């Protein structure tokens, strides 16, 4: 197992009087090495809180999160830094997650500098690594010294992926990586993610509210609703034979591009 989440509960606002808000309620799931795990849910269901807990950007109220056997929330700061080099994240909004004032070279090499203990490199080696990464995500060497505003949304997301891959992580958290993109661009980014997984043997933790995207990318899926996992299992099982009412509702609500499947279409 690459990532094991056991009975994780997160309650916000317990310090004041009152019960607080339960953002995650007894969540358990495990992600196999080399697989893609999808997490689906509506806004406010706790998807992002869970990623923050995995990255230890939020503390847990109870439960454990183990990454390759190590309890993430029990590690020292230095140990956590080493874990972070192997556990990277790609953010949702490619327009907000890149610093507009520094070049692509500097953006992608930043994690290499932060994790210099884990991946020691000279500055020339860093530049070579950045070039290699750009090629890997389908950009080229000439993009090296440009600024984020010179790129389209899809290209920026590729830069975000290159940055996440810089320190050669094994585990990638993808927090709605394509929801800000056009469908045509989304298709290209999803195919890129497929290719990178095959080439580098990555493990994905993929968050989305788009069930089509989840089915396309993931092997296993968990459906989260108001902080609780209502259903999880292999993607085909969940999609073809949903057991939970909420999952069924989500599947039905997803608009299919086939006009004949519309619930509104009058019989003509």
């Amino acid at each position, binding site marked *: 197992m690459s990532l094991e989440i056991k009975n994780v509960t997160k309650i916000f606002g317990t310090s004041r009087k009152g019960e607080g808000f339960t953002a995650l309620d007894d969540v358990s799931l495990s992600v196999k090495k080399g697989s893609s795990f999808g997490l689906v849910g509506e806004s406010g269901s706790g998807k992002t809180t869970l990623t923050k807990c995995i990255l230890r950007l939020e503390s847990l109220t109870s439960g454990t999160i183990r990454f390759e056997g190590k309890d993430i929330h029990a590690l020292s700061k230095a140990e956590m830094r080493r874990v972070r080099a192997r556990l990277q994240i790609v953010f949702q909004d490619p327009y907000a997650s890149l610093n507009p004032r520094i070049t692509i070279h500097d953006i992608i090499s930043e994690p290499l500098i932060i994790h210099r203990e884990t991946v020691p490199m000279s500055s020339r080696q860093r530049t070579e690594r950045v070039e290699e990464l750009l090629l890997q995500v389908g950009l080229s060497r000439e993009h090296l010294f440009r600024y984020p505003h010179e790129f389209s949304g899809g290209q920026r997301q590729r830069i975000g992926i290159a940055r996440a891959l810089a320190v050669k992580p094994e585990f990638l958290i993808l927090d709605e990586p394509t929801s800000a993109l056009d469908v045509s661009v989304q298709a290209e980014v999803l195919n890129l993610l497929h290719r990178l997984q095959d080439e580098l043997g990555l493990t994905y933790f993929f968050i989305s509210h788009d069930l089509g995207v989840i089915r*396309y990318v993931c092997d296993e899926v968990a459906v989260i609703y108001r902080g609780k996992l209502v259903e999880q299992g292999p993607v085909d099982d969940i999609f073809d034979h949903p057991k939970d009412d909420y999952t069924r509702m989500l599947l039905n*609500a997803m*608009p*299919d591009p086939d006009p*004949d499947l519309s619930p509104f279409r009058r019989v003509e």
Partner: protein
Amino acid sequence: MALLDIQNLQLAMRSYEGETQILHGIDLKIERGEIWGMVGETGSGKSLTGLSVSRLIPSPPGRYLAGNIDFGGKDLLKASDRDMRALRGRHIGMIFQDPTTNLNPVFRIGTQLVDVALHAGHDDPSILGLSKGASRSAMKKAARKTAIEMLDKVGIPDAATRIDDYPHQFSGGMRQRVLIAMAMIGKPDLLIADEPTTALDVSVQAQILRLIHDLVAERNIGVLLITHNLGVVAQICSHVAVMYRGRILESGPVREVLKHPSHVYTQALLDSVPTVHTKRGELRGLSGLSPEAFA
């Protein structure tokens, strides 16, 4: 006569680098009872087409090179600002993408709705159920009543008390319902909805689509629905126009266009939508197809 008839609409925008033509001759005819979907990628000009109909593109930087937009026997491109103000909200309703920014946070929902109702009522008091020459206080009273009825209609529970809430007390889906109520309060003949469900969850999206669908069935209005989501188009639209770089590549009844696309671009766009049936490796982007192939 068609409800809305756009002919050869050509729009150019001025920037520091000179003038660029954005719309290269748009032709579109919307009849009552039709829901027209306008799909395309970012920057294809679908929003600017919608904004042109309500004449919300400032000039400069915008400049219409040619074309006309006939609505109710008038060419909107030649209409005065005064005429347009009378049309907007009253005959042309509009809903925009982001329900969080389109309501004023410092005014109650009711205040904002009543404002629109009064504006429409000045033009035609029958909207508020009054005859001409009604007193100001009667107008205000009737406007509030109409606002509550409208909120109720779009499915806000307990509308009579929720009307005095502020926007932040409403969820995203509820705010979008308020915006739809606001757009429908003047009983418009044409509704322009620019990405009305893009910011919403799928379950809420389904509810909003049903609402729009029911409004069309009930009031026999025409709708121009701008979206990049082909699924949404397939669900509720009767017709669809596919836009690319300021041109309509293909348009017609939704089943015809989506089931048997005659244009490579439409097919490519359809191939890039992951559905619950798409298997790994089947998805195609648009790379490899040159822009010239679509022209």
